[in-house]
């Protein structure tokens, strides 16, 4: 599974990292690290919840 954070939409609400800190890393400004990231094994459900929680719709999940 992979998650992709669209930097143009992300505005740093940090809901993703609050629910799945091992999936969504933050940069030094407090925004989700942009681009595609592999989801560590066992983190699929937190990854999905983190994506759902984003109020900007900045995260897409692909299998």
């Amino acid at each position, binding site marked *: 599974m992979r998650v992709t954070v669209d930097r143009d939409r992300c*505005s*740093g*609400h*940090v*809901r993703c*990292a*609050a629910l799945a800190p091992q999936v969504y890393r*933050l940069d*030094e*400004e*407090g*925004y989700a690290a942009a681009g595609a990231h592999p989801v560590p094994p066992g983190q699929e459900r937190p990854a999905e*919840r983190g994506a*759902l*929680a*984003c*109020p*900007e719709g900045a995260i897409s999940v692909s299998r």
Partner: protein
Amino acid sequence: MSVDPSVDTGAGAPPSIEFDHYSPQYRDNWQQIADENLARCPVARSGTYGGFWLVSDYASVSRVIRDDATFTSTHNMDDPSDPRQGIVIPPNPMLQVPMEFDPPLYNVYRRMLNPYFSPPAARALEPFVRQAVDALLDKVCATGRMDLVLDLGNPVPALATMKLVGLPLDDWERFAEPMHGIVSHPAGGPEYLRCMNALQELGNALGALVPGLREREADGLLSGLAKATVNDQPLSDGEVVLIALLVMQGGVDTTTALLANTLWWLEEHPEQRQRLIEEPALLEHATEEFLRIFTPVPALARTVTEDVVVGGQQMCAGDRVLMSFSAANRDPEVFDDPAEARLDRFPNPHASFGLGIHRCIGSNFARSWFQIMLRGVLDRMPDYAIDRDATRRNESIGIINGFFNMPATFTPSEPRGVPMPE
């Protein structure tokens, strides 16, 4: 306040309402008014304050707030005939830097400020905030009575903000008092103007500190701003002051309002209060739900830069637009049973911190301060009972939906011997 049936809402003419976000009727009935507007006229024209569009539904609010090219935040202080008058209706007499800026300049300021407000920055302040909460509750716990707003909700965010900015903690009331006056009284009224003047004087006092801070090392945002550059130029003394004042205005009162509304509601719903005490993990989702249902900052404005259709209504360049976050947060298209507070609601994409590039920069601090204060009360005075007759809401909720005071009684307990933080 409600839809005026005598106005032609037929072909062509937009639905017309008389909406006054500073009125006592709005303060006392904002949920009902929001629900009615959502159902009947999600994008409506109001004749008050020189005329503006009131946007209530979630889709339209997020459309407006995310399109900062068509809906500008710019505030032209030099020319009142310029329709671009910033993010408050009626316009704020002081420029809000960088909240009333647009890209690309805005982004440079925001990137410079972001590290001070990141999740690690909020975590680093938590020991200070915990100590402040413990020390303040120590002062009242043995008496069995306290004012939840005046003894806790006001001082904690104000002290934390003073610490963040790098100002002497003892001065917190000097700053918090006029800021509270500005957001709790109708804009332009006598109390509001008195407080604006007081704030301007405090701004002058801050300005006098800036030249020294350009040379000398010191903690806090003010010192950082004094040394910061934007596009390779140092900020002017005036800009340093305006940014610091904006952060302080954002920091005080907002989180206070969230706490006060939450404590009021939890007292009305004892089974939910018990649930939060027993399941502390619930606080993560519950915080989002309290933000949604109380919407401490109910609405902010933009100005249309080119003709555009929103929610089926034709807006024209120069029109002012008020985005009702509190109505968007009750939109049944997005939230099931929106009138109901569900502590485990998920997902919860509320608009209480705004959306898009101006997303509240203080949101990491706000969540942290709120949770520490609420835990403090639920832990040390879990049976608090509010004296509802003696409680006063803000005179107006146009800027902040909060309370002036909230006296309460509870079973007394022993102080923990925690001193105020330095």
